[in-house]
Protein backbone atom coordinates (compact mmCIF):
# COMPACT_ATOMS: atom_id res chain seq x y z
CA UNK A 1 0.00 0.00 0.00
CA UNK A 2 1.08 3.54 -0.78
CA UNK A 3 1.18 5.62 2.39
CA UNK A 4 0.94 9.38 2.65
CA UNK A 5 4.56 9.75 3.79
CA UNK A 6 5.74 7.60 0.91
CA UNK A 7 3.82 9.81 -1.47
CA UNK A 8 5.39 12.92 0.06
CA UNK A 9 8.82 11.40 -0.30
CA UNK A 10 8.12 10.62 -3.92
CA UNK A 11 6.96 14.20 -4.61
CA UNK A 12 10.13 15.49 -2.93
CA UNK A 13 12.28 13.19 -5.08
CA UNK A 14 10.59 14.48 -8.22
CA UNK A 15 10.90 18.09 -7.06
CA UNK A 16 14.62 17.70 -6.29
CA UNK A 17 15.18 16.17 -9.69
CA UNK A 18 13.28 18.97 -11.44
CA UNK A 19 15.25 21.62 -9.57
CA UNK A 20 18.54 20.25 -10.76
CA UNK A 21 18.51 16.85 -12.52
CA UNK A 22 21.35 14.74 -11.23
CA UNK A 23 22.53 11.16 -11.02
CA UNK A 24 22.07 11.19 -7.25
CA UNK A 25 18.29 11.50 -7.56
CA UNK A 26 18.28 8.75 -10.16
CA UNK A 27 20.28 6.58 -7.79
CA UNK A 28 17.79 7.38 -5.08
CA UNK A 29 14.95 6.56 -7.47
CA UNK A 30 16.43 3.13 -8.10
CA UNK A 31 16.81 2.49 -4.38
CA UNK A 32 13.24 3.65 -3.94
CA UNK A 33 12.15 1.09 -6.54
CA UNK A 34 13.68 -1.65 -4.41
CA UNK A 35 12.05 -0.25 -1.33
CA UNK A 36 8.63 -0.01 -2.99
CA UNK A 37 8.89 -3.60 -4.18
CA UNK A 38 9.94 -4.79 -0.76
CA UNK A 39 6.89 -3.02 0.66
CA UNK A 40 4.72 -4.65 -1.96
CA UNK A 41 3.62 -1.52 -3.77
CA UNK A 42 2.18 -2.82 -7.04
CA UNK A 43 3.18 -1.23 -10.37
CA UNK A 44 -0.32 0.17 -10.90
CA UNK A 45 -0.15 1.86 -7.49
CA UNK A 46 3.19 3.32 -8.48
CA UNK A 47 1.85 4.79 -11.74
CA UNK A 48 -1.18 6.12 -9.94
CA UNK A 49 1.07 7.75 -7.34
CA UNK A 50 3.16 9.27 -10.09
CA UNK A 51 0.06 10.80 -11.68
CA UNK A 52 -1.02 12.30 -8.37
CA UNK A 53 2.49 13.58 -7.66
CA UNK A 54 2.53 15.51 -10.95
CA UNK A 55 -0.46 17.55 -9.79
CA UNK A 56 1.63 18.92 -6.94
CA UNK A 57 4.46 19.98 -9.19
CA UNK A 58 2.76 22.09 -11.81
CA UNK A 59 -0.17 22.62 -14.11
CA UNK A 60 -0.84 19.18 -15.58
CA UNK A 61 -2.50 19.35 -19.02
CA UNK A 62 -5.77 17.47 -19.25
CA UNK A 63 -4.45 15.00 -21.84
CA UNK A 64 -1.57 14.00 -19.59
CA UNK A 65 -3.92 13.50 -16.68
CA UNK A 66 -6.29 11.40 -18.76
CA UNK A 67 -3.43 9.33 -20.18
CA UNK A 68 -2.69 8.03 -16.70
CA UNK A 69 -6.06 6.26 -16.69
CA UNK A 70 -4.90 4.22 -19.65
CA UNK A 71 -1.43 3.59 -18.23
CA UNK A 72 -2.91 2.41 -14.93
CA UNK A 73 -5.29 0.08 -16.74
CA UNK A 74 -2.40 -1.46 -18.67
CA UNK A 75 -0.36 -1.71 -15.48
CA UNK A 76 -3.04 -3.75 -13.70
CA UNK A 77 -1.89 -6.73 -15.75
CA UNK A 78 1.69 -6.08 -14.69
CA UNK A 79 0.31 -5.94 -11.16
CA UNK A 80 -1.15 -9.41 -11.64
CA UNK A 81 2.24 -10.69 -12.65
CA UNK A 82 3.78 -8.92 -9.65
CA UNK A 83 1.25 -10.57 -7.34
CA UNK A 84 1.94 -13.97 -8.88
CA UNK A 85 5.62 -13.74 -7.95
CA UNK A 86 4.70 -14.26 -4.32
CA UNK A 87 2.99 -17.52 -5.07
CA UNK A 88 5.81 -18.73 -7.29
CA UNK A 89 8.31 -17.88 -4.63
CA UNK A 90 6.42 -19.53 -1.81
CA UNK A 91 5.73 -22.68 -3.81
CA UNK A 92 9.36 -22.80 -4.77
CA UNK A 93 10.49 -22.39 -1.19
CA UNK A 94 8.17 -25.16 -0.09
CA UNK A 95 9.63 -27.42 -2.74
CA UNK A 96 13.17 -26.49 -1.70
CA UNK A 97 12.30 -27.40 1.88
CA UNK A 98 11.01 -30.78 0.73
CA UNK A 99 14.14 -31.38 -1.28
CA UNK A 100 16.31 -30.50 1.70
CA UNK A 101 14.57 -33.15 3.79
CA UNK A 102 14.88 -35.66 0.94
CA UNK A 103 18.56 -34.78 0.62
CA UNK A 104 19.12 -35.42 4.32
CA UNK A 105 17.25 -38.69 4.00
CA UNK A 106 19.39 -39.66 1.06
CA UNK A 107 22.54 -38.93 3.06
CA UNK A 108 21.38 -41.55 5.52
CA UNK A 109 21.34 -44.12 2.74
CA UNK A 110 25.07 -43.68 2.27
CA UNK A 111 27.58 -45.15 4.72
CA UNK A 112 28.63 -42.73 7.44
CA UNK A 113 32.01 -44.37 7.82
CA UNK A 114 34.34 -46.40 5.67
CA UNK A 115 35.52 -49.92 6.62
CA UNK A 116 38.90 -49.97 8.33
CA UNK A 117 41.12 -53.03 7.74
CA UNK A 118 44.89 -53.35 8.07
CA UNK A 119 46.74 -53.25 4.75
CA UNK A 120 43.93 -51.57 2.84
CA UNK A 121 43.21 -47.89 2.24
CA UNK A 122 39.77 -46.77 1.09
CA UNK A 123 38.90 -43.40 -0.40
CA UNK A 124 35.51 -42.18 -1.62
CA UNK A 125 34.27 -39.04 -3.35
CA UNK A 126 30.57 -38.93 -4.24
CA UNK A 127 29.02 -35.64 -5.34
CA UNK A 128 25.50 -34.98 -6.61
CA UNK A 129 25.14 -32.84 -9.74
CA UNK A 130 21.86 -31.43 -8.39
CA UNK A 131 20.28 -31.68 -4.96
CA UNK A 132 19.35 -35.33 -5.18
CA UNK A 133 21.87 -37.88 -6.41
CA UNK A 134 21.23 -40.88 -8.63
CA UNK A 135 24.58 -42.46 -7.71
CA UNK A 136 24.64 -44.98 -4.89
CA UNK A 137 27.44 -46.71 -3.05
CA UNK A 138 27.64 -48.72 0.12
CA UNK A 139 30.02 -50.81 2.21
CA UNK A 140 28.65 -53.60 4.36
CA UNK A 141 30.89 -55.53 6.74
CA UNK A 142 30.38 -59.27 6.33
CA UNK A 143 32.80 -60.51 8.93
CA UNK A 144 36.25 -59.78 10.36
CA UNK A 145 37.91 -60.21 7.03
CA UNK A 146 35.40 -59.38 4.36
CA UNK A 147 33.15 -56.52 3.35
CA UNK A 148 30.66 -56.07 0.54
CA UNK A 149 30.83 -53.10 -1.76
CA UNK A 150 28.12 -51.67 -4.00
CA UNK A 151 28.45 -48.93 -6.62
CA UNK A 152 25.39 -48.12 -8.69
CA UNK A 153 24.03 -45.48 -11.03
CA UNK A 154 20.33 -45.03 -11.49
CA UNK A 155 19.10 -43.46 -14.70
CA UNK A 156 16.61 -40.67 -14.74
CA UNK A 157 15.89 -37.59 -12.74
CA UNK A 158 16.58 -36.91 -9.08
CA UNK A 159 13.41 -37.79 -7.28
CA UNK A 160 12.62 -41.08 -8.96
CA UNK A 161 16.29 -42.07 -8.82
CA UNK A 162 16.23 -41.40 -5.09
CA UNK A 163 13.13 -43.56 -4.72
CA UNK A 164 14.81 -46.36 -6.62
CA UNK A 165 17.97 -45.98 -4.58
CA UNK A 166 16.13 -46.42 -1.34
CA UNK A 167 14.58 -49.59 -2.74
CA UNK A 168 18.00 -50.94 -3.58
CA UNK A 169 19.32 -50.06 -0.17
CA UNK A 170 16.47 -51.84 1.61
CA UNK A 171 16.60 -54.81 -0.71
CA UNK A 172 20.33 -55.29 -0.13
CA UNK A 173 19.88 -54.58 3.56
CA UNK A 174 17.19 -57.22 3.97
CA UNK A 175 19.38 -59.80 2.19
CA UNK A 176 22.54 -59.04 4.15
CA UNK A 177 22.04 -62.00 6.44
CA UNK A 178 21.90 -64.46 3.57
CA UNK A 179 25.20 -65.69 2.15
CA UNK A 180 24.73 -64.65 -1.48
CA UNK A 181 27.58 -64.50 -4.00
CA UNK A 182 27.93 -61.34 -6.13
CA UNK A 183 26.28 -63.00 -9.13
CA UNK A 184 23.37 -64.26 -7.05
CA UNK A 185 22.91 -60.83 -5.48
CA UNK A 186 22.70 -59.15 -8.88
CA UNK A 187 20.33 -61.81 -10.15
CA UNK A 188 18.14 -61.20 -7.16
CA UNK A 189 18.26 -57.40 -7.46
CA UNK A 190 17.58 -57.62 -11.18
CA UNK A 191 14.30 -59.36 -10.51
CA UNK A 192 13.29 -56.87 -7.85
CA UNK A 193 14.20 -53.86 -9.95
CA UNK A 194 12.37 -55.28 -12.94
CA UNK A 195 9.23 -55.90 -10.96
CA UNK A 196 9.12 -52.52 -9.31
CA UNK A 197 10.40 -49.73 -11.48
CA UNK A 198 9.33 -48.17 -14.71
CA UNK A 199 10.57 -49.96 -17.85
CA UNK A 200 12.19 -46.71 -18.98
CA UNK A 201 14.40 -46.66 -15.90
CA UNK A 202 17.28 -48.95 -15.16
CA UNK A 203 20.19 -49.37 -12.81
CA UNK A 204 23.83 -50.15 -13.50
CA UNK A 205 25.70 -51.77 -10.64
CA UNK A 206 28.93 -53.32 -9.54
CA UNK A 207 28.53 -55.56 -6.50
CA UNK A 208 31.49 -57.26 -4.90
CA UNK A 209 33.03 -58.74 -1.81
CA UNK A 210 36.57 -57.90 -0.72
CA UNK A 211 38.58 -60.39 1.31
CA UNK A 212 41.09 -58.31 3.24
CA UNK A 213 43.08 -61.35 4.23
CA UNK A 214 43.68 -62.67 0.73
CA UNK A 215 43.27 -59.18 -0.82
CA UNK A 216 40.99 -60.84 -3.28
CA UNK A 217 38.03 -58.96 -4.76
CA UNK A 218 35.18 -61.07 -6.13
CA UNK A 219 32.56 -59.06 -7.97
CA UNK A 220 29.92 -59.04 -10.68
CA UNK A 221 28.87 -56.25 -13.00
CA UNK A 222 25.45 -55.22 -14.33
CA UNK A 223 26.08 -52.88 -17.27
CA UNK A 224 28.19 -50.61 -15.10
CA UNK A 225 31.00 -48.29 -16.23
CA UNK A 226 34.19 -50.43 -15.99
CA UNK A 227 36.56 -49.60 -13.19
CA UNK A 228 40.36 -49.64 -13.30
CA UNK A 229 43.02 -51.90 -11.82
CA UNK A 230 46.45 -50.38 -11.32
CA UNK A 231 49.31 -52.87 -11.21
CA UNK A 232 52.09 -51.23 -9.24
CA UNK A 233 54.71 -53.70 -10.43
CA UNK A 234 54.07 -52.77 -14.06
CA UNK A 235 52.95 -49.17 -13.50
CA UNK A 236 50.00 -49.82 -15.78
CA UNK A 237 46.21 -49.20 -15.51
CA UNK A 238 43.95 -51.99 -16.78
CA UNK A 239 40.20 -51.90 -17.35
CA UNK A 240 38.37 -54.05 -14.84
CA UNK A 241 36.82 -57.03 -16.60
CA UNK A 242 33.14 -57.86 -16.30
CA UNK A 243 29.97 -57.40 -18.27
CA UNK A 244 26.33 -58.19 -17.68
CA UNK A 245 22.92 -56.79 -18.41
CA UNK A 246 21.78 -53.67 -16.56
CA UNK A 247 19.34 -54.32 -13.73
CA UNK A 248 15.68 -54.15 -14.64
CA UNK A 249 16.04 -54.93 -18.34
CA UNK A 250 15.41 -58.68 -18.73
CA UNK A 251 13.96 -60.84 -15.98
CA UNK A 252 16.40 -63.73 -16.43
CA UNK A 253 19.76 -62.01 -16.79
CA UNK A 254 22.72 -63.99 -15.52
CA UNK A 255 25.86 -62.47 -14.06
CA UNK A 256 29.40 -63.75 -13.96
CA UNK A 257 31.72 -63.65 -10.98
CA UNK A 258 35.05 -61.93 -11.63
CA UNK A 259 38.06 -62.13 -9.40
CA UNK A 260 41.15 -59.98 -8.97
CA UNK A 261 43.92 -60.27 -6.43
CA UNK A 262 45.70 -57.10 -5.30
CA UNK A 263 49.44 -57.12 -4.67
CA UNK A 264 51.19 -54.49 -2.55
CA UNK A 265 50.71 -51.04 -4.12
CA UNK A 266 47.95 -52.18 -6.45
CA UNK A 267 44.91 -49.94 -6.72
CA UNK A 268 41.30 -50.67 -7.58
CA UNK A 269 39.29 -47.72 -8.89
CA UNK A 270 35.53 -48.07 -9.11
CA UNK A 271 33.39 -45.29 -10.51
CA UNK A 272 30.16 -44.16 -12.13
CA UNK A 273 29.91 -42.69 -15.61
CA UNK A 274 29.72 -39.20 -14.10
CA UNK A 275 33.51 -39.44 -13.69
CA UNK A 276 34.19 -40.18 -17.33
CA UNK A 277 31.47 -37.85 -18.50
CA UNK A 278 33.25 -34.80 -17.12
CA UNK A 279 33.25 -32.46 -20.06
CA UNK A 280 36.51 -31.02 -21.25
CA UNK A 281 35.87 -28.12 -23.63
CA UNK A 282 32.61 -29.64 -24.77
CA UNK A 283 34.15 -33.11 -25.31
CA UNK A 284 33.72 -35.98 -22.94
CA UNK A 285 36.88 -37.11 -21.30
CA UNK A 286 38.29 -40.28 -22.88
CA UNK A 287 39.30 -43.15 -20.64
CA UNK A 288 42.93 -42.84 -21.67
CA UNK A 289 42.92 -39.18 -20.71
CA UNK A 290 41.42 -40.19 -17.39
CA UNK A 291 44.31 -42.64 -16.95
CA UNK A 292 46.76 -39.78 -17.49
CA UNK A 293 45.04 -37.84 -14.73
CA UNK A 294 45.15 -40.85 -12.41
CA UNK A 295 48.80 -41.51 -13.15
CA UNK A 296 49.57 -37.99 -11.91
CA UNK A 297 48.07 -38.72 -8.50
CA UNK A 298 49.69 -42.05 -7.60
CA UNK A 299 51.63 -42.69 -4.42
CA UNK A 300 49.33 -40.98 -1.96
CA UNK A 301 46.64 -42.25 0.42
CA UNK A 302 43.55 -43.56 -1.34
CA UNK A 303 41.32 -40.76 0.00
CA UNK A 304 43.85 -38.13 -1.02
CA UNK A 305 44.00 -39.63 -4.50
CA UNK A 306 40.21 -39.59 -4.80
CA UNK A 307 40.05 -35.96 -3.67
CA UNK A 308 42.83 -34.87 -5.99
CA UNK A 309 41.24 -36.57 -8.97
CA UNK A 310 37.90 -34.92 -8.25
CA UNK A 311 39.54 -31.51 -8.13
CA UNK A 312 41.42 -32.15 -11.37
CA UNK A 313 38.33 -33.34 -13.23
CA UNK A 314 36.12 -30.57 -11.85
CA UNK A 315 38.58 -27.96 -13.04
CA UNK A 316 38.77 -29.62 -16.47
CA UNK A 317 35.02 -29.34 -16.81
CA UNK A 318 35.03 -25.71 -15.68
CA UNK A 319 33.40 -26.40 -12.33
CA UNK A 320 30.26 -27.75 -13.87
CA UNK A 321 29.04 -31.21 -12.89
CA UNK A 322 26.74 -32.58 -15.58
CA UNK A 323 26.13 -35.92 -13.89
CA UNK A 324 26.46 -37.31 -10.40
CA UNK A 325 30.09 -38.20 -9.69
CA UNK A 326 31.26 -41.18 -7.64
CA UNK A 327 34.75 -42.64 -7.34
CA UNK A 328 35.92 -45.29 -4.90
CA UNK A 329 39.65 -45.97 -4.50
CA UNK A 330 40.91 -49.18 -2.84
CA UNK A 331 44.65 -49.33 -2.35
CA UNK A 332 46.58 -52.25 -0.92
CA UNK A 333 49.50 -50.84 1.06
Amino acid at each position, binding site marked *: MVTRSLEEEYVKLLRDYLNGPGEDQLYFAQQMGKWLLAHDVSPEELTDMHGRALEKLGEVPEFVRASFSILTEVMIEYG*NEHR*SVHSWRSRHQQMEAELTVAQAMQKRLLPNQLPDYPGLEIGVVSIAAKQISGDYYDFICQDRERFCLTVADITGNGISAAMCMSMLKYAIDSLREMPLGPDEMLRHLNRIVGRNIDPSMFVTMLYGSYDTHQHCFRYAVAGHEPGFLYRAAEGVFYDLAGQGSVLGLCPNSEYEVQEVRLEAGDILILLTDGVTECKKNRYYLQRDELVLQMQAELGVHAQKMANALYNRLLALSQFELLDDYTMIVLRRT
Partner: protein
Amino acid sequence: MWQSCGPETIKIEREADIVTARQVGRNMSRQLGFGTIMQSRIATSISELARNIYLYAGSGTITIAPIVRNGVLGLQLTAIDAGPGIPDIRKAMEDGYSTSGALGAGLPGVRRMMDEFEIHSSPGEGTRVVVVKWNGPIEEGV
Protein backbone atom coordinates in the same frame (compact mmCIF):
# COMPACT_ATOMS: atom_id res chain seq x y z
CA MET B 1 -25.79 6.63 -1.26
CA TRP B 2 -25.12 2.96 -1.91
CA GLN B 3 -28.75 2.19 -1.16
CA SER B 4 -29.57 3.83 -4.41
CA CYS B 5 -27.47 1.31 -6.31
CA GLY B 6 -28.92 -2.16 -6.39
CA PRO B 7 -27.63 -5.34 -8.02
CA GLU B 8 -27.40 -5.36 -11.78
CA THR B 9 -27.21 -8.37 -14.04
CA ILE B 10 -25.60 -8.13 -17.45
CA LYS B 11 -26.07 -10.80 -20.10
CA ILE B 12 -22.76 -11.71 -21.72
CA GLU B 13 -23.21 -12.74 -25.32
CA ARG B 14 -20.98 -10.43 -27.34
CA GLU B 15 -17.68 -8.77 -26.62
CA ALA B 16 -19.49 -5.43 -26.26
CA ASP B 17 -21.31 -6.89 -23.25
CA ILE B 18 -17.97 -7.23 -21.50
CA VAL B 19 -17.46 -3.48 -21.85
CA THR B 20 -20.98 -2.85 -20.49
CA ALA B 21 -20.30 -5.07 -17.49
CA ARG B 22 -17.00 -3.30 -16.82
CA GLN B 23 -18.76 0.07 -17.00
CA VAL B 24 -21.46 -1.00 -14.55
CA GLY B 25 -18.81 -2.43 -12.21
CA ARG B 26 -16.66 0.69 -12.40
CA ASN B 27 -19.62 3.00 -11.71
CA MET B 28 -20.89 0.91 -8.84
CA SER B 29 -17.47 0.58 -7.26
CA ARG B 30 -17.00 4.34 -7.52
CA GLN B 31 -20.35 4.87 -5.82
CA LEU B 32 -19.33 2.46 -3.09
CA GLY B 33 -16.27 4.59 -2.43
CA PHE B 34 -13.51 2.39 -3.92
CA GLY B 35 -10.39 4.30 -5.06
CA THR B 36 -9.38 4.57 -8.70
CA ILE B 37 -6.95 1.64 -8.57
CA MET B 38 -9.56 -0.63 -7.02
CA GLN B 39 -12.11 0.54 -9.59
CA SER B 40 -9.69 -0.57 -12.31
CA ARG B 41 -8.99 -3.88 -10.57
CA ILE B 42 -12.70 -4.55 -10.28
CA ALA B 43 -13.16 -3.71 -13.97
CA THR B 44 -10.29 -6.06 -14.79
CA SER B 45 -11.83 -8.85 -12.71
CA ILE B 46 -15.15 -8.35 -14.50
CA SER B 47 -13.28 -8.56 -17.81
CA GLU B 48 -11.70 -11.86 -16.88
CA LEU B 49 -14.91 -13.43 -15.66
CA ALA B 50 -16.90 -12.12 -18.62
CA ARG B 51 -14.29 -13.13 -21.18
CA ASN B 52 -14.28 -16.66 -19.81
CA ILE B 53 -18.04 -16.75 -20.36
CA TYR B 54 -17.83 -15.14 -23.80
CA LEU B 55 -14.96 -17.32 -25.05
CA TYR B 56 -15.73 -20.70 -23.54
CA ALA B 57 -19.40 -20.86 -22.59
CA GLY B 58 -20.80 -18.67 -25.35
CA SER B 59 -23.23 -16.95 -23.05
CA GLY B 60 -23.98 -16.35 -19.40
CA THR B 61 -24.48 -13.56 -16.91
CA ILE B 62 -22.47 -11.31 -14.66
CA THR B 63 -24.25 -9.93 -11.62
CA ILE B 64 -22.71 -6.97 -9.85
CA ALA B 65 -24.08 -6.12 -6.44
CA PRO B 66 -23.30 -4.11 -3.35
CA ILE B 67 -23.01 -6.31 -0.32
CA VAL B 68 -22.92 -5.72 3.43
CA ARG B 69 -21.62 -8.22 5.95
CA ASN B 70 -20.93 -7.49 9.61
CA GLY B 71 -21.29 -3.79 8.95
CA VAL B 72 -18.70 -3.84 6.18
CA LEU B 73 -19.52 -2.68 2.69
CA GLY B 74 -18.29 -4.47 -0.40
CA LEU B 75 -18.93 -5.33 -4.00
CA GLN B 76 -19.86 -8.83 -5.14
CA LEU B 77 -19.43 -10.21 -8.64
CA THR B 78 -21.23 -13.38 -9.67
CA ALA B 79 -20.46 -15.01 -13.01
CA ILE B 80 -22.73 -17.83 -14.13
CA ASP B 81 -22.75 -19.85 -17.31
CA ALA B 82 -24.03 -23.20 -18.53
CA GLY B 83 -20.92 -23.92 -20.58
CA PRO B 84 -18.64 -26.94 -20.66
CA GLY B 85 -17.34 -26.35 -17.12
CA ILE B 86 -13.78 -26.60 -15.88
CA PRO B 87 -12.62 -30.21 -15.60
CA ASP B 88 -9.89 -29.60 -13.02
CA ILE B 89 -10.50 -26.51 -10.89
CA ARG B 90 -7.40 -27.09 -8.78
CA LYS B 91 -5.34 -26.89 -11.95
CA ALA B 92 -7.22 -23.92 -13.41
CA MET B 93 -6.32 -21.94 -10.32
CA GLU B 94 -2.60 -22.52 -10.85
CA ASP B 95 -0.53 -19.81 -12.45
CA GLY B 96 1.15 -21.87 -15.12
CA TYR B 97 -2.16 -23.12 -16.41
CA SER B 98 -3.77 -19.70 -16.66
CA THR B 99 -1.09 -18.38 -19.01
CA SER B 100 -2.06 -20.97 -21.58
CA GLY B 101 -5.19 -19.00 -22.34
CA ALA B 102 -7.50 -21.92 -21.72
CA LEU B 103 -10.84 -21.89 -19.94
CA GLY B 104 -10.25 -20.39 -16.54
CA ALA B 105 -7.53 -18.07 -17.79
CA GLY B 106 -6.98 -15.09 -15.55
CA LEU B 107 -8.75 -16.66 -12.57
CA PRO B 108 -5.64 -16.73 -10.36
CA GLY B 109 -5.20 -13.01 -11.06
CA VAL B 110 -8.82 -12.33 -10.11
CA ARG B 111 -8.44 -14.30 -6.91
CA ARG B 112 -5.44 -12.21 -5.90
CA MET B 113 -7.11 -8.89 -6.67
CA MET B 114 -10.28 -9.74 -4.75
CA ASP B 115 -10.79 -10.61 -1.08
CA GLU B 116 -13.04 -13.63 -1.47
CA PHE B 117 -13.19 -16.13 -4.27
CA GLU B 118 -15.47 -19.10 -4.71
CA ILE B 119 -15.80 -21.31 -7.74
CA HIS B 120 -18.11 -24.18 -8.55
CA SER B 121 -17.71 -25.96 -11.82
CA SER B 122 -18.03 -29.42 -13.20
CA PRO B 123 -17.94 -30.73 -16.74
CA GLY B 124 -21.31 -30.37 -18.41
CA GLU B 125 -22.84 -28.38 -15.60
CA GLY B 126 -21.34 -24.97 -16.24
CA THR B 127 -19.41 -22.67 -13.97
CA ARG B 128 -20.32 -20.29 -11.19
CA VAL B 129 -17.77 -17.88 -9.76
CA VAL B 130 -18.51 -15.53 -6.87
CA VAL B 131 -15.97 -12.96 -5.77
CA VAL B 132 -16.16 -10.17 -3.21
CA LYS B 133 -14.04 -7.10 -2.63
CA TRP B 134 -14.49 -5.39 0.73
CA ASN B 135 -14.10 -1.66 1.14
CA GLY B 136 -14.43 -1.06 4.87
CA PRO B 137 -17.08 -0.30 7.47
CA ILE B 138 -20.27 1.48 6.38
CA GLU B 139 -19.88 5.18 6.99
CA GLU B 140 -22.51 7.10 8.92
CA GLY B 141 -25.17 8.77 6.87
CA VAL B 142 -24.50 6.53 3.92
